[in-house]
């Protein structure tokens, strides 16, 4: 069986044609222009995954009330909403640096929720200045 899908790994968005065997296993990928596209097609039918980007509540900053975050690797697509629920219970504290782990082993072992923005500690939150 052949199926079409749009590659999402880069802005080019190649139209992929994927051939599946009777067990639903991918046996051939066509239309991709890079190796990553091939890999995407292979996993999309067995274990579709997406990088989640969202925000968490932030304290300790004068400028920002929310911190943009993302998962360090794609997480299973069916778990996106579960992940959103979990995100809403989290809170980060300024100062934060890009790449800081906000929540380790998020949804899956080895995948972290990480900060996407450098945010300084606000003056009014800096205890050393009080």
């Amino acid at each position, binding site marked *: 069986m052949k199926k079409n899908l749009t590659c999402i790994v880069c802005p080019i968005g190649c139209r992929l044609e994927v051939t599946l065997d009777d067990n639903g296993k991918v046996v051939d990928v066509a239309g991709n222009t890079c190796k990553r596209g091939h890999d995407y097609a292979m996993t999309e039918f067995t274990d579709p995954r997406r990088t989640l980007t969202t*925000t*968490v*509540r932030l304290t300790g900053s004068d400028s920002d009330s*929310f911190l943009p975050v993302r998962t360090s690797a794609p997480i299973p697509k069916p778990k996106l909403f579960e992940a959103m629920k979990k995100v*809403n219970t989290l809170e980060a504290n300024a100062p934060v640096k890009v790449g800081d782990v906000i929540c380790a082993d998020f949804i899956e072992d080895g995948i972290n929720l990480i900060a996407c923005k450098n945010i300084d500690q606000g003056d009014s939150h800096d205890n050393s200045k009080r």
Partner: protein
Amino acid sequence: MEKIYDIAIIGAGVTGAMLAHKLAKYKLDVAVLEAGCDVASGASRANSAIVHAGFDAACGTLKAKLNVRGCAELPVLAKQLDVPYKNNTSLVVAYGEEDEKMLEVLLERGRKNGVPKLEIIDSARLHEMEPSLSPEATAALYAPTAGIICPYDLTMAAAENACINGCEFYFDYKVDKIERDGDILNICAGDKTIRARYAANCAGVHSDEIARLIDPEFPIKLIPRRGEYMVLDKAEGKTVSATIFMVPSKAGKGILVSPTVDGNLLVGPNAHEVGFKDDTSTEAMGLEEISQGARRLVPSANLRAVITSFAGVRPTPDTDDFHILPSAAAGNFLNLVGIESPGLASSPAVAEYAIEQLAKMGVTLKVRDDYNPFRTEKGHMRKPFRELSNEEKAELCKKEPAYAKIICRCETITEGDILAAIRRPLGAKTVDMVKMRTRAGMGRCQGGFCSPRVVEILANELGVSPMDIKKRDCGSDILCDKTK
């Protein structure tokens, strides 16, 4: 014992606000009862913004008399109340002989009405004055006394002046019952009651219904006639300098093209009866109709530069004149019904005339000695930042850094301007109220960038959550939830 006002004014449109302003100089306790959450919530918010010279109304009508008087007074009043007014003049443009005959009729009528300096000009002079007019225009009636003014700014100014002189304003007060208790009127809205010795019904498009609350036999019926408009970008504001009218027809003064005092170009209105008095929606066909009308007058008008469209509903009376008389059922209840166009131009004269009527009805008019003729406690209002000179801007930014922070980039409105609009009498509580008072959000991006900032400033200043800040009335929520 509950307070008894001397006069309750029902409606805070330009008629009601102007009446409150004119009454403010007398020793009277005045209340203004408004159904909306702000002044100028009805036709005073959405009209042509024209100070008509006074040649439209039939000779001998009250409308004609008050229009000519109002037109003469408004420039002076506008200066006193810090409302931008421009004497940009007007032209009624004829296309061929039929129309030109009509110009003669208008000229004759205007002269009888007492409109000064009216004249008919030929095509050459017309096109010299307005080079972008259609080459097919053959002549025009030129009215040097006509002008433009922002109708809600005028309404706000009049109301704010009344407010600082002690007039009390009640908003979200939708009058639904009026009872007579001896010489006192109980004016009710739901479970609320305001008591007053006299009342003036200035309820605009709803004034016939209000009149019938006290006199079920009140004869005049208002026909809601909607007019649609388009506002063009300031880049098009100089397309014409005078207000350009078509030759009027039965349906009204027809479609016009006019600059606004704020520098935009206004196109409209059409005139269509609607079933529902508050139906200020626009329709595709209507917008097309006014586009065509505008193109006929000014073929080069760049209608692609539209930044917004809106509609207003005229309170057109079936009698075709202003009705300013006490109710047949109650000698202490004054009706002002059918104050449609030129209601804006006439407004100061309408108020004066209404006061003459109130005096006849028994109101004692004693001039106060502490009357403040201006819009603020301290006299003239501070100009908006954008209108200051460079030196004034520099000075103000140094003194108040909030004026060095631009919030609305399209219209150059600063945080200082917005804070002032929130803090002044009858100050802004909603995003639209900020918009009406400062123009923040009225520019080409239509609030795309500044509305989140305005919500934030309002919330901080009023001490509430941004979730509680509305666009206009209750129910017009901007934000519906927190993300987390």
